[in-house]
Structures are given as structure tokens and as C-alpha cells.
């Protein structure tokens, strides 16, 4: 190679590396801005600019071919993702994140697979990084796919059987044996590579199937962290600094986020992964006394219209009924009448921490009216009405008193301490955990049966009728 050609390549390489450095900086600044509500929106723009720079620059990477294939894959993937991302409903956001995350894990596994099949990962270090990245990426891929299926309602059952943990351990050990054979260059045959990936994919499926829907957000967050780690490891194999930095940052940020979420749900990570919620085997002890007292919408309308202070407790049921717009309309009527209205959000209202805030924001509720558990709990005692819409376990006072209850110890919203409690509920069934809710039977509680959307419309009419 002539000196001129070499220096061109070196110059180009330096430019590419500099661009990757800029990308890493943009990602970190973007994430930092996303961690505060004031700057959050600009954060994704910073990170997006970083991604654009890195992608464009990579087309100039020295020694590459197959450009038509690369272009076709990017266009296909981007068009599908754009289309699906634009039309997904806010209520379905958690499973969409799971899906996109799984794709990233799959891509990380594919990179490792190409390197391993090609024999590109030379030396013990590179080979170890490649098999670890591939293993983690493949588990994240199939695990996230199952998480998506469960939250989307495609997989309805939780598959649990005796010896499931033993099977998972067996799968893990078998995958690790394949990994060790490859990493130590004892046996580099394509069959071992195939075995590693097949085992890892099955492991992801069998690890995720027994986990209940309520715990899925924590699992999705964990897979998000794992994908980040896999990307970082692949970055080491490919000597790509942008991948190393971005992947590792997401890996550690995702791990912390997973812990925060598990804490908000009063679960430990081990508990989520190795036992199903309500998997105690025994029927929940229902020692609830009293009766359910129904009420008409018109009476609730009067009660709300003449209240000084009302606190709304929304739950996932409200989001499913798409009632957030009607409820906000109702609250605006009340605010115009001089009623103080606040929204109380439990950390696990909605499908994952923060999800309910997104849904309320979508309906146009300003976020100074939204309070989280610590801010609002002392205020229930001064509230005339607590309006519970599609929430159940998060307001069950049993969590404070009954040590035998599976939700004992979970922090709850003290809705039972309001002067009047109105519960809008579709039917008389129990909550997600299958536990009877003692709140519904209290003397100051009235039940307004019906779909949240319909009940919201009736309440609007009722408040207007008061004049």
C-alpha cells in the first residue's frame, strides 16, 4: 500500500473515531437531560443527533462491502419501527419498549455470532467477550419477546411446573459449557456456536415465561440493562468506543433503574425472577367484613360539586377504559367551581413506574396537579372525597394491617382516611393480586359500578346538573 493511501485511511479512521467520541458525549448529555422533567424533551434530541452522526460516519468505515444489504436492512427496520412507534397507544408503551429492546439484544447476539462463525474473535480475551456478549444478547432477545407477548396479551398463561428452576440452571450450565469451549478455543466448530445461541434463546424464554404480568416492567428494565451490557461487550470485540461507552452507560443506568423500580414495587429483584406474584399456592385469606354499598352517579356529582378538596386515585383500569380524558374534563369542571383537585399516583399505578404520569400527561393534566405517594398521603385526611378509578391493590389498607397478605408491607395510598371514598369499578371482582380489598367495605366507602369512561361521562352530567 502506498504512503498516500495509508495516510488517507488513517485520516479517515481518525475522523471516524472523533465522530464516535462526539456521539458518546451527546449520548451522556442526552441521558442526563432526560433525567429531569424540565430538560427531558431536549435530551432525546441530543441523543438522537448522536445516533445520526454515528450511523452516517459508519458508512465511511474502511474495508467494508455489502453496502446494498446494509442500506436495505436499515431502511426496512427504520420504516417498520417508525410506523409501529407512531401508532402504538400510550397504554401499550411498556411492551413496545420491551420489543425494541429485544431487537437490540438480538442485534448484539447477531454481531457476536458473525464474529464467532467467521473466527474473527481471536485470542482468549476477545473470544470471552464475544461469547459473553452473544449469550447475554440472545437471552435478552428471546426474554424480551416473551415479555412483549405477555403484556400484549398474546401469551395469557404463566407456565409454571415442578423443576422449572432446575431446568433453567441446566440450560444455563449447558450454555456456559459451549461458551467456555469457544472462549478457550478448545472447539471453535460452528456447531458449538450454534449450540450456544440455541441454548441462550431457550434460556431467555424459559426464564421469562413463569414471571407474572405485574412484575414484567422490572424484567423489561433488567433486559434493557442486559442489552446495554451486551452492546458494550460487543464494542470491546469490535474496538468500537461509541458502543463501549453507550452500552456500558446503559448497562449500569439500567441496573440502577431496575433496582429503583423493584423498590417502588416493594419487591426484590431475586423475588421477581425466582417466584411468581401470588404464587403462594394458598388462597388469599379473605377475612373482610361488611358490605359493598352502591351509589348513583347523580349523588356522587353533588358530593364532588360541594367538596372543598377531592383527590383522584387513578389506576390501570382507568387507562384500559381510556377514561383519562373524561376524568380530566370532570376535574376541570370541579376546579372551575373552586374545588381543590389533585391526582395521587402510586409508584406502580399503570404498568410501570411513571407510566400513569405519561397517560395523564397525554390527557392534558398539568403535572403540578399530580402528586406521588410521599407528597399526597398526609393530605387524604383533609380531603372530602377520594375518587378511586380503576385502582385496587394500591389503596388496599390490608397492606398496612394483615401480615398474612401477599401485599403486606407494600406502601399504599391512604385513601381510606378521606371523609368519603368513591370507588368507580367495573364489577365486584378482586384486584390483580386476587386479594379482597378491605377499603371497599368501609363505612365511608360507596361503590359506583360501571366502565370508567361511562361513569366519567355520567359524573360530568351530574356536576353540570348541580348548576
Amino acid at each position, binding site marked *: 500500500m502506498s504512503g498516500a493511501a495509508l495516510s488517507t485511511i488513517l485520516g479517515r479512521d481518525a475522523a471516524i473515531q472523533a465522530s*464516535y467520541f462526539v*456521539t458518546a458525549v451527546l449520548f451522556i448529555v442526552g441521558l442526563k437531560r*432526560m*433525567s*429531569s*422533567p424540565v430538560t*427531558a*424533551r431536549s435530551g*432525546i434530541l441530543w*441523543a438522537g443527533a448522536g445516533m445520526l452522526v*454515528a450511523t452516517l460516519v459508519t458508512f465511511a468505515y474502511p474495508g*467494508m462491502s*455489502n453496502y446494498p*444489504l*446494509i442500506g436495505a436492512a*436499515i431502511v*426496512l*427496520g*427504520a420504516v417498520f*419501527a417508525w410506523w*409501529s*412507534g*407512531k401508532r402504538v397507544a400510550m397504554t401499550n408503551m411498556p411492551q*413496545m*419498549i420491551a420489543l*425494541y*429492546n429485544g*431487537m*437490540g439484544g*438480538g*442485534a448484539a447476539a*447477531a*454481531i457476536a455470532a458473525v*464474529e464467532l*462463525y467467521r473466527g474473527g474473535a481471536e485470542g482468549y480475551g476477545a473470544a470471552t467477550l464475544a461469547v459473553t456478549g452473544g449469550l447475554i444478547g440472545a437471552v435478552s432477545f428471546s426474554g424480551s419477546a416473551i415479555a412483549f407477548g405477555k403484556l400484549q396479551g398474546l401469551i395469557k398463561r404463566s407456565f409454571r411446573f415442578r423443576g422449572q428452576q432446575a431446568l433453567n440452571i441446566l440450560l444455563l450450565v449447558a450454555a456456559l459449557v459451549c461458551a467456555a469451549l469457544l472462549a478457550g478455543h478448545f472447539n471453535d466448530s460452528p456447531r458449538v456456536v450454534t449450540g450456544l445461541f440455541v441454548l441462550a434463546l431457550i434460556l431467555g424464554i424459559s426464564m421469562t415465561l413463569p414471571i407474572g404480568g405485574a412484575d414484567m416492567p422490572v424484567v*423489561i428494565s433488567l433486559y*434493557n440493562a442486559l*442489552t446495554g451490557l451486551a452492546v458494550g461487550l460487543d*464494542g*470491546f470485540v469490535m474496538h468500537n*468506543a*461509541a458502543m*463501549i*461507552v*453507550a*452500552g456500558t*452507560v446503559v*448497562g*449500569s*443506568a*439500567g441496573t440502577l*433503574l431496575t433496582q429503583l423500580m423493584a423498590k*417502588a414495587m416493594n419487591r426484590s429483584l431475586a423475588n421477581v425472577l425466582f417466584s411468581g406474584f401470588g404464587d403462594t399456592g394458598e388462597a388469599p385469606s379473605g377475612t373482610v367484613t361488611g358490605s359493598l354499598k352502591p351509589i348513583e352517579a347523580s349523588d356522587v356529582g353533588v358530593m364532588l360539586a360541594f367538596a372543598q378538596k377531592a383527590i383522584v386515585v387513578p389506576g390501570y383500569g382507568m387507562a384500559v377504559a381510556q377514561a383519562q380524558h373524561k376524568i380530566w374534563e370532570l376535574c376541570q369542571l370541579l376546579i372551575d367551581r373552586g374545588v381543590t383537585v389533585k391526582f395521587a399516583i402510586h*409508584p406502580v399505578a399503570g404498568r410501570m*413506574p*411513571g407510566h400513569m404520569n405519561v397517560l395523564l400527561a397525554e390527557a392534558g*393534566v398539568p*403535572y*403540578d396537579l399530580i402528586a*406521588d405517594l410521599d407528597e399526597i398521603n398526609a393530605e387524604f385526611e383533609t380531603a372530602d372525597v377520594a375518587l378511586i378509578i380503576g385502582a385496587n391493590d394500591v389503596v388496599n389498607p390490608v397492606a398496612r394491617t394483615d401480615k398474612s397478605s401477599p401485599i403486606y408491607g407494600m406502601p399504599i395510598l391512604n385513601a381510606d382516611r378521606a371523609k368519603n371514598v368513591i370507588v368507580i369499578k367495573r364489577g365486584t371482582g378482586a384486584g390483580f393480586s386476587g386479594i379482597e380489598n378491605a377499603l371497599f367495605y368501609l363505612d365511608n366507602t360507596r361503590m359506583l359500578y360501571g366502565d370508567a369512561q361511562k361513569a366519567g361521562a355520567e359524573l360530568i352530567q351530574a356536576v353540570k346538573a348541580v348548576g
Partner: protein
Amino acid sequence: MTGIVALYIFMLAAFTGYEVISRVPVILHTPLMSGSNFVHGIVLVGAMVALGNAHTPLEKTIGFIGVLLAAINAMGGYVVTERMLEMFKSSRARGPRPGAH
């Protein structure tokens, strides 16, 4: 890049990720998870290089799948994060939030 330098980068990046997230309010958990999901879409860069250096039909097939999946990760992650954070803007525009946080 020597092994020890790589290890330093790994350690510092890990601390950076931890620091960046450590004081985030609960209301941003979902958008932030989505945002970090977008950031690991950088795997696209690696997948492009892997496909660019693939020779056999098997390598090309897996490389193609890799780029396809990575593009979905990056684009999808961006679109849904942007949509979620867009709504936080609209609530801010209605007036500054007094006090809390």
C-alpha cells in the same frame, strides 16, 4: 486499545451511567427506560461493520438480521421516547410548576 485502558473506559462509563440516573424522579422512570433503550441502539454501528465484513452466505444472513434488528431498536426507541417526552413539554407550557421537585 490495550486491555487495561479498555478496563478503565468500562469502569468510568459504568460510574457515569450510575451517576446520570441516580436522582431521577419516579415520573420519568418510563421515559428514561425508553431513552436508555434508544441509546443502546448504537449496536446498529457494530452490526453495520459486522455485515460490511461478512463473506459467506451464513455471515451475510446473520449480519443482515443484525442490522435490521438494530435499526428497529434505534428508530423505534427514538420515536416512542420522543412521543412520551413531547407530552411533558405540553404540561410545562401550561405554566411553571410551583414548588415540588
